[in-house]
């Protein structure tokens, strides 16, 4: 069964629902639009941080 976690956006503080999260997953905050990375999962605590990402159009 899918497990849903609740975390808060480190940028705007909004609540974010995460279904079966995994570390390194990227989610977008629906309030402020910031791309966030799941950096830690500790029991029922989820730590999110702003994702530092590159464009998508790299190498060949």
């Amino acid at each position, binding site marked *: 069964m899918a497990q849903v976690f609740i975390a808060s956006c480190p940028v705007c503080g909004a609540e974010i629902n995460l279904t079966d999260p995994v570390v390194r997953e990227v*989610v977008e905050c629906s309030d402020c639009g910031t791309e966030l*990375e799941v950096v830690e999962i500790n029991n029922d605590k989820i730590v999110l941080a702003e994702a530092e990402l*590159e464009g998508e159009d*790299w190498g*060949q």
Partner: protein
Amino acid sequence: MFIVVKLGGKVIDQALAQVINDLSSLVNEHEFVIVHGGGKQVTEQAERMGVKQKFIVSPSGFRSRYTDEETIKIYQMVVGGLINKKIVLELAKQGIKAVGLTGLDGFLLKAKRKKKVKSVVGNKVLIVEGGYTGKINHVNKEILEILLKEGYLPVIAALALGEENEPLNVDGDRAAANIASALSADALLILTDVEGIKDAKGRFIKEIRGCEIEPVLKEVGYGMKKKVLAVKEALRGGVLKAIISSGFRSNPVTKALKEENCTVVRNVGENT
């Protein structure tokens, strides 16, 4: 005219002699720079060496090689050593003084390394290390101008120097676009295995203005997406026109320059 020609992997594999033969008939009239990648051959040689190749797909559909430290070395060997010299030798047969370079030589291509990128894995988007891949941010046109002035035809392998002087895998179409921009080329010619761009309904696009290219970008598959992106960058960089054309026909360079059965994107509209 001064023309930057990008040779696709399949063209190099299966149609190189006819392309170079045609090109040699045009060297008195035009000036050329050739740019190439060689992804498919890298995969082949790497697997021959027991190094399994991984690919990542970004959320908007760009598929890229995951280039680890071992793979970038194989990349240097195959693209910089094997494919580059294959083209140089074919030009030599036609009496053309070709000089093969990689973007690592003479600080020709500098790139910003992609540290972290998004990769679609199942139904999730994950962050992965970018590996030895990068996006070109500087072209040292001096070395190319020196060679061109003395009558040498540069053949450039799509490799670039990172900020820590590490070798990086860069996209060949975009490398060609960057070089065409830096040299203010009259045309960027992308010779590939299809006739040109088709829209979402499968209709062939014969001619299009640069300012109309944005919607096309959304309609094409990922193979063509990088080419359209490269075309967009070349035109933004001041190149007069970009041609996407097939290398699999007789006189493929001559016909493309005559704009026969290919897609021509012209630098008119927002840039004029």
